[in-house]
């Protein structure tokens, strides 16, 4: 049958992983990268072809293939089954497309790293699991991908495993994801209990055929799924792992922690929209979590100095947007923003990577500035990204963000409030992005010049062990470069360019009717959200005027953010510090990320460890469990000593015992019945 090749989409990267993972160590770098790129290019091509096939008129809306059963017991069967609908198509596109670009970029970025083969093997492994995730036809298979990407991210974050911080970050990421999985698993158990199956089609059909089945256990399932999503997509309260994940190489941050993996949560929620539609309560929770995360993360992002962390918090906040969208039932908007965000955030990260590469490892924005002439391509491409995320038309970010805000506004209940939060967040976003932009590319140069760069770089790398080779390489680079700060090679800049382009035009697929477009993506996804018509109705009812008004407002807010950033970090660079000095406590609070990590460790981790060590390990295990056995032994030997005390060795005493025993026996025999 024709869609068998669906299998190839995930399996090819897996093959790549196997090849590089087992033999890569002995391969030359060229070969490694060739394998890796090939194994990501092929799926991309396949997806493109698939796309074409499914856009073709009369093409089935859903492709499904079922293969061997994976788990099969009486009463429950779980198959290896893939399904492709339009939602999947979009995800596939993002994953393979952006994924491929980032692979290309990595070839340049990682060129001098040791463990090159390892890196690409892991990347391919990630691609495999990510594709399984989006293609899965059952909750459990989705969970496979879900865990798999978690694993890949664990391995990649801990890529510089000699660095304790890196290893820690990897562990942290995995464990926080596990907390999410805890929810996901429980949701699946409940699903099995309620539906006896984990296939999407089966479950969702079962729900749709019971129109009056709302809330109840569905809410439970939905909330548990939300917990899972929060873990994967770094939402409150489980977002803390994402900033630390920046310990990984920058392409990893771009691919996994910006474009693809972290959006898995949103994808999952959207995939289960049938379920969520039946549980307004859960949806409300989603929306609130989203909004809260968005503004919270943005506020932290405003004061970070590490360029990658700024981007990380911005990612969290953007993911919050998407959650918000899902929460108000605007799944399309969520996916739309997911799409555009994939483009510009990937772009931003890669750009940041390029900057770091240029400064040979420097990540602190306070040590940057004035780079726009040194690395023009990076500058221009990154500018595109900044503008896009800031939400200035006609860049991609504007359309998707605006859609979300609009949908939030028109959704009843908390809608207005959510909209306001989103709006504020938009302002903050544009502020901290431009702050980054100004601090990095404008103003005086704070980075050290070429001559003493090495020691500095060495200093940087000494603490980040993995780069050792890179430093060495920079010496001879320095030989034929005029100065240490240099533009990245083409293999890195080309992906940047492409992504820049995408983050300009990417949004045009979703131009709302109000702006004279006709929201293709909406129609494209319609078969998936056949239930999403409600929001559609709202649009027409309210009319375009409102939509335009809101758009204008958000644009203004964005520009305001731009202006403030301009004033603070270009016009009068002191004002920021002055402002910070005005409210030092607040500033410190925000700069230290509201001490969330500390709170977690103080409230949860330390008590748990103490409890285990003292109560469980010491009292129960050492005391009761082992103590009881020892006590029994002591009692036995004590009695034994008693018995041996009788054995005084003196004949007369023995005779005494005999006499006593005799008397006892006589008593028993004579009065036996009576005393028995």
């Amino acid at each position, binding site marked *: 049958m024709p869609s068998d090749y669906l299998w190839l989409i995930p399996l090819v990267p897996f093959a790549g992983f196997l090849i590089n993972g087992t033999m890569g160590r002995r391969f030359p770098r060229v070969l490694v990268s060739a394998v890796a790129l090939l194994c990501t290019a092929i799926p991309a091509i396949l997806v493109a072809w698939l796309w074409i096939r499914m856009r073709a008129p009369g093409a089935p809306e859903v492709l499904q293939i079922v293969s061997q059963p994976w788990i099969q017991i009486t009463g429950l069967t779980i198959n290896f089954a893939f399904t492709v609908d339009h939602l999947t198509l979009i995800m596939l596109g993002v994953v393979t497309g952006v994924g491929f670009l980032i692979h290309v970029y990595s070839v340049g970025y990682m060129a001098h790293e040791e463990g090159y083969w390892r890196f690409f093997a892991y990347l391919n492994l990630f691609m495999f699991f990510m594709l399984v995730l989006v293609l899965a036809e059952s909750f459990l298979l989705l969970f496979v991908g879900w865990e798999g990407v978690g694993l890949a991210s664990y391995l990649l974050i801990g890529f510089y495993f000699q660095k304790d911080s890196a290893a820690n970050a990897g562990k942290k990421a995995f464990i926080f994801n596990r907390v999410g999985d805890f929810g996901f698993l429980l949701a699946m158990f409940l699903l099995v209990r309620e539906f006896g199956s984990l296939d999407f089609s089966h479950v969702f059909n079962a729900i749709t055929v019971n129109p009056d089945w709302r809330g109840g256990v569905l809410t439970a399932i939905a909330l548990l799924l939300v917990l899972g999503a929060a873990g994967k997509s770094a939402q409150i309260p489980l977002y803390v792992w994402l900033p630390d994940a920046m310990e990984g190489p920058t392409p990893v941050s771009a691919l996994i922690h910006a474009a693809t993996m972290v959006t898995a949560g949103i994808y999952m929620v959207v995939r289960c929209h049938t379920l969520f539609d039946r549980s307004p309560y859960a949806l409300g929770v989603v929306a609130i979590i989203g909004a809260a995360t968005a503004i919270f993360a943005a506020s932290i992002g405003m004061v970070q100095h590490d360029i990658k962390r700024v981007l990380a918090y911005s990612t969290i906040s953007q993911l919050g947007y998407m959650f918000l969208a899902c929460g108000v039932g605007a799944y399309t908007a969520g996916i739309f923003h997911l799409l555009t965000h994939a483009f510009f955030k990937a772009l931003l990260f890669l750009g940041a990577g390029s900057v770091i590469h240029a400064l040979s490892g420097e990540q602190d924005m306070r040590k940057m500035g004035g780079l726009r002439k040194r690395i023009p391509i990076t500058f221009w491409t990154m500018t595109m990204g900044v503008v896009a995320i800031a939400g200035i038309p006609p860049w991609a970010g504007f359309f998707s963000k605006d859609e979300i805000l609009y949908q939030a506004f028109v959704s009843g209940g908390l809608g207005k409030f959510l909209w306001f939060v989103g709006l504020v967040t938009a302002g903050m976003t544009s502020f901290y992005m431009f702050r980054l932009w100004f601090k990095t590319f404008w103003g005086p140069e704070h980075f050290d010049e070429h001559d003493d760069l090495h020691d500095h770089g060495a200093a940087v790398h000494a603490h980040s062990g993995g780069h050792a080779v890179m430093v060495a390489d920079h010496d001879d680079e320095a030989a034929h470069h005029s100065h240490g700060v240099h533009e990245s090679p083409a293999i890195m800049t080309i992906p940047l360019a492409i992504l820049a382009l995408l983050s300009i035009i990417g949004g045009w697929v979703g131009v709302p009717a109000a702006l004279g477009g006709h929201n293709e993506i909406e129609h494209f996804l319609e078969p998936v959200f056949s239930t999403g018509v409600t929001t559609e109705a709202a649009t027409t009812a309210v009319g375009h005027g409102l939509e335009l008004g809101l758009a204008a407002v958000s644009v203004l807010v964005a520009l305001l953010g731009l202006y403030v950033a301009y004033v603070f970090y270009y016009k009068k660079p002191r004002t920021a510090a002055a402002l910070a000095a005005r409210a030092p406590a607040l500033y410190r609070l925000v700069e230290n990320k509201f001490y969330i990590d500390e709170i977690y460790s103080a409230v949860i981790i330390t008590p748990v460890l103490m409890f285990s060590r003292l109560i469980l390990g010491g009292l129960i295990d050492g005391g009761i469990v082992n103590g009881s056995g020892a006590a029994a032994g002591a009692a036995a030997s004590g009695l034994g000593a008693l018995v041996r005390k*009788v054995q*005084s060795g*003196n004949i*007369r*005493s023995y*005779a*005494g*015992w*005999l*006499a*006593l*025993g*005799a*008397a006892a026996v*006589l*008593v028993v025999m*004579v009065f036996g019945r009576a005393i028995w």
Partner: protein
Amino acid sequence: MQLVLFIIFGGLAVAGAFNLLLQRHPINSALSLVVVMMSLAVLYWSLGAEFLAAAQVIVYSGAIMVFFVFVIMLLNAGEEERTKGSRAAYLVGFPGAAAIFCLLSFVFLKESHALGSSSVGGYLNHITSNISEISALLFTKLLLPFEVTSVLILVAILGAVVLARKEQ
């Protein structure tokens, strides 16, 4: 008649026994044991066991006790010194002994009516047939024990030889 004999010699036996208990010198104990045996012989006779009475006098007080006295002399055992042995002997033993006695006598008294009482002399009033019956029984019905006793005595002799002979 019976009663008188019983009271006199029973009392004598008990007295002898107590004397054995109280005397500190083995010889005195031995002699008091002889007294007990003699008085028991009388009681045997009064119960119509004339043969046993004789045997008691000859074998027991004659042979065995002489043997005892002989060994006492041989090892010239003197006054037994009051070493303090184990307290268990007293703390445990005497209650035990007392209990044994009480239980036994309790049982005997309980059953005394069923046991009836006995008149002087045997149920056969001429001694010869008593002995003849004993011998008859001994060589017919209880032949085997009688024969086997020889083995017992053989063992005893062996033992005496093995144990008492000085290692060279």
